């Protein structure tokens, strides 16, 4: 067996080196830069004096407000994505006629594979005060649309942009539950609601968690939606840290922001996961299946 391990590792080695050289090393460098500072007007970073000052800087209201804003958009956006996407995925997997399933998947794929920036620009056209939607509203006697460059526009944008990413894993999750156990539940006297709450949902839960994480993580790091729809009022961390690298040329501060963003994502997932567990305890106690009681 010793012999078998060595070639296995060797086959994966090229990919390992590639990812180490162009992912692990650069991210490590960013981590290193985050303890440095910006020396003067023309330098981008210096690390001769190490400190946590950049992190302290990130925590000042100037920058921290954007972090709070991002968390708000991230949590609310993911929740809205779930509320909009879950019924669609449920319908596609369990209620739609089997012969159109492939077509429905293809229809979700089209927006998923349309360039992210392009579909956001589609919303820019739709929501613009000079666009047709706005003039339609004005003909009906409303104000011209003023939603662009606000946090609401960013929220709409992220819900739209990440919706396919929510629907697809949820579809797979519900599709896996299948009809057999659900019909069994119904035959044994389960009402539709009980079948959903006690058969379909628990079986689909791992896929649901995956779907929520798949939306939440990239949504927190979103850059393009805020750039296109947000403007100054709808700022997000992605945009802010990008500007540290592109315009402000303060790589040290930008690096600290990047590390803080990753930290915030990880910590918020841990916190929300713990919260979900806490809520689940009484619910589970209430719905625990007790065979003896059911029979009686």
């Amino acid at each position, binding site marked *: 067996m010793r012999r078998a391990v060595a070639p296995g*590792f060797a086959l*994966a080695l*090229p990919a390992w080196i590639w990812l180490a050289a162009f992912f*692990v090393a650069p991210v490590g460098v960013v981590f290193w830069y985050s303890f440095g500072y910006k020396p003067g007007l023309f330098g981008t970073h210096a690390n001769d004096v190490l400190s946590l000052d950049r992190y302290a800087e990130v925590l000042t209201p100037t920058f921290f407000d954007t972090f709070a804003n991002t968390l708000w958009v991230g949590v609310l956006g993911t929740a809205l994505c779930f509320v909009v996407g879950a019924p669609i995925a449920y319908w596609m997997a369990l209620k739609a006629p089997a012969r159109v399933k492939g077509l429905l998947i293809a229809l979700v794929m089209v927006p998923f594979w349309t360039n*992210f920036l392009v579909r956001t620009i*589609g919303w820019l056209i739709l929501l613009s005060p000079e666009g047709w939607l706005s003039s339609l509203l004005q003909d009906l006697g409303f104000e011209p649309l003023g939603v662009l460059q606000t946090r609401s526009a960013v929220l709409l944008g992220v819900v739209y942009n990440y919706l396919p990413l929510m629907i697809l894993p949820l579809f797979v999750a519900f599709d896996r539950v299948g009809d057999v156990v659900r019909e069994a539940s*119904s035959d044994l006297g389960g009402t539709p609601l009980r079948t959903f709450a006690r058969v379909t949902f628990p079986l689909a839960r791992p896929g649901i968690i995956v779907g929520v994480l798949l939306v939440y993580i990239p949504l927190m790091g979103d850059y393009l939606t805020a750039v296109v729809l947000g403007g100054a009022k709808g700022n997000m961390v992605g945009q802010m840290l990008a500007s540290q690298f592109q315009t402000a040329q303060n790589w040290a501060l930008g690096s600290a922001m990047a590390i803080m963003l990753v930290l915030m*994502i990880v910590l918020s997932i841990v916190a929300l996961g713990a919260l979900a567990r806490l809520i689940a305890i009484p619910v589970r106690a209430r719905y625990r299946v007790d065979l003896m009681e059911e029979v009686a």
Partner: protein
Amino acid sequence: MTAREMARSTGVPAAASAARPGPAVHRHRTPIRHRLLLAWSLVGFAFLFAPIVVIVAYSFNTGRLLVSFEDFGIESYLALFQKQVLSDAVSVSLRAAGLSSLIASGLGTLAGIALARRPGGWTVWFVGILLLVAVTPSIVGAVALLPWFVFLGQDLGFGVFNDGIARLTIGSSLFSVAVVAYLVRARLIGMQANLEEAAADLYSTPLRTLRRVTLPLAMPAILSGFLLSFTFSLDDTIVAAFVQVSGTTPWPVYVLSALRSGLRPEIAALSTGMLLLTLFALLVVAIILKRAGDSTADIAKTMAGGS
């Protein structure tokens, strides 16, 4: 409280109180909640397609500005062929995507085979890195690559890292390596290693077994991984915006800069054209996977980037 629960708590037999028609019995009448689900889904699909329809419709705008529609015409599509900067952007994207998907499918295939057929103590670490690459928000990877390329190219003097195409290729290959490795691993794990063992018993060398048995088995995953990588790279905006060198601007970065300098209808025409190209590649992926015997749900999973 449902009728059945009420029956239990009041002691009335369930059958007596079950006046409400159950779904299992009356299948011919669609319950109201099914119709609500259908309506919700139809609205959802309209929502999903709204901005795409807008982009395609506005690509036929003859006005000067994209946002205000003036008249219907195909001038913007003609501009794609007349304006050098547009065709250059497409050509840069295609070259980088071609190279990047070749690298990603090569590295990813080998890694996927290793993961499926030769797992060991290293697997956990390797899968961890792949996962990390896949879930790290691309803005973090993007801002990290910029100083790294500057360091490699200017401080250490490796000229290749100052080349625009090389930078774009590397930048967009990372996520794709993870996706291809995942797809190849998933396909091979689904099959027993019987054929490979048989080949070894028949005195095939390891390299020959790899070439004649394992690779053909993994081929549907490799091909779809290649095409997915190609489209990922073609659409890569964030990483490209950071690592690009002026002179080699890929098309999404051109669109991003047009956002600041003024959106013209040819941006919509360009986007429509690239969307058609992407959809064609995906159609090929779907056909390959369908022929390889994947279910609709499997194909959906693959196309969502192996999620």
